[in-house]
């Protein structure tokens, strides 16, 4: 499988070249164009129950699409997320990674997709009540609105609400005020997420809920 992330960080999309017999799994509606003879199968994402959880609790779609190449030659497929922004490829080597709702774009066939309770703190922090768990060995593509920043954490780090995209399992979330009561209320930061532990976090430079709250007061 040959893959490339194109379109720069502003409008990243993933081009996948599937060899005969290969398969890629993508979020519903992620396909923007593909060779006409690729096979597409919509499947429950990780079984019926997990798929239902994903739909109603994480706000992700109930189905994922399995694209497989049953032809004799290489076939191309283009995948993209709904928001303009960066896409990263994560190589899992018998590892686990947590993704925020909406961040998952695609993965290779061997990767396991699941849903896990993230805790009420995560929910209050507008990071969602549940999180997506990708585990196993293979490639995972995830994306964000805006660019992506990576930080190695050992101890504590503070992230504005709704900017967290993903994190390694060694990390826990806590909620706190950005500063004192005054600066939190008037400084525009309000609540922030405190990530605690040892591992890696990924942050998006923009947030869709931030854009929505900018538009909201301007609506007629």
């Amino acid at each position: 499988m040959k893959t490339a992330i194109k379109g720069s960080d502003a409008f990243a999309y993933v081009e996948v070249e599937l060899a005969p017999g290969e398969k890629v799994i993508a979020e519903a509606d992620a396909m923007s164009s593909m060779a006409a003879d690729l096979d597409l199968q919509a499947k429950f994402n990780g079984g019926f129950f997990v798929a239902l959880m994903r739909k109603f609790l994480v706000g992700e779609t109930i189905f994922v699409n399995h694209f497989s190449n049953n032809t004799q030659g290489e076939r191309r497929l283009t995948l993209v997320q709904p928001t303009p922004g960066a896409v990263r490829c994560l190589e899992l080597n018998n590892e686990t990674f947590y993704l925020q709702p909406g961040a998952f774009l695609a993965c290779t066939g061997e990767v396991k997709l699941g849903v896990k309770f993230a805790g009420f703190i995560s929910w209050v922090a507008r990071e969602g009540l549940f999180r997506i768990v990708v585990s196993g060995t293979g490639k995972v593509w995830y994306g964000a609105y805006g660019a992506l920043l990576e930080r190695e954490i050992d101890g504590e780090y503070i992230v504005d609400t709704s900017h967290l995209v993903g994190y390694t399992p060694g990390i826990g979330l806590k909620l706190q005020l950005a500063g004192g009561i005054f600066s939190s209320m008037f400084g525009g930061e309000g609540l922030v997420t405190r990530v605690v532990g040892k591992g890696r976090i990924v942050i998006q430079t923009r947030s869709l809920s931030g854009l929505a709250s900018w538009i909201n007061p301007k609506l007629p």
Partner: protein
Amino acid sequence: MKIDFIHQPGNTAARVVLATGETLTAEGGAMIAMSGHLHVETTTHKKSSGGFIKAVKRMFAGESLFLNHFTAGNESGELWLGSSLAGDMMRYELDGENLIVQAGSFVACEHSVNMDMGWQGFKNLISGESMFWLRMSGRGQLILNSFGAIYPVEVDGEYIVDTGHIVAFNETLDFTLTKAGKSWLSSMLGGEGLVCKFKGRGTVWCQSHNPKSFGSSLTSGLKPRRA
């Protein structure tokens, strides 16, 4: 007429240099800035072709009802064009062939290019994507825009493009609205819905992002309109 682009692909703007006597036809609202002496005329139709009915058809196609015609008189001038969604632009030079443009992607064209609303009939009604097409013919340059980056796909045989991702395609290609993959059920459940299947030989220019998908992920965070 000289056309070039700056700040691609994120915040693309087109700079058009008009020589004396040249006219550029642009979608209403596309002009950002221009030389003070350019002559502007606003019509509901392409000058000397069609009339009000065509304009109404174009409005239904998601385009502005009005077209602006910018003409350089005795002096040459320049004109800047932009689009409302962040993304790329492309230039295409017609040389007698026909190009089908997704209505929302049209920005501007030279006066020598003919524009016609292509009515794809029933195909459009069932797609729910308000897919309307402009058939561009004649000779001259046109400017198209996209949401996100633009990539060309050379079709030789069959290729599928999701309906929200089409910018333009050669008329040598035939298309049908159909399912992605073999099963209707999978295509519907998997959120792909109807897609365009292109057949033949030619190029399809695709936009990397789908305005409708971005719209629906944004609007879930917006407050309902006050009655």
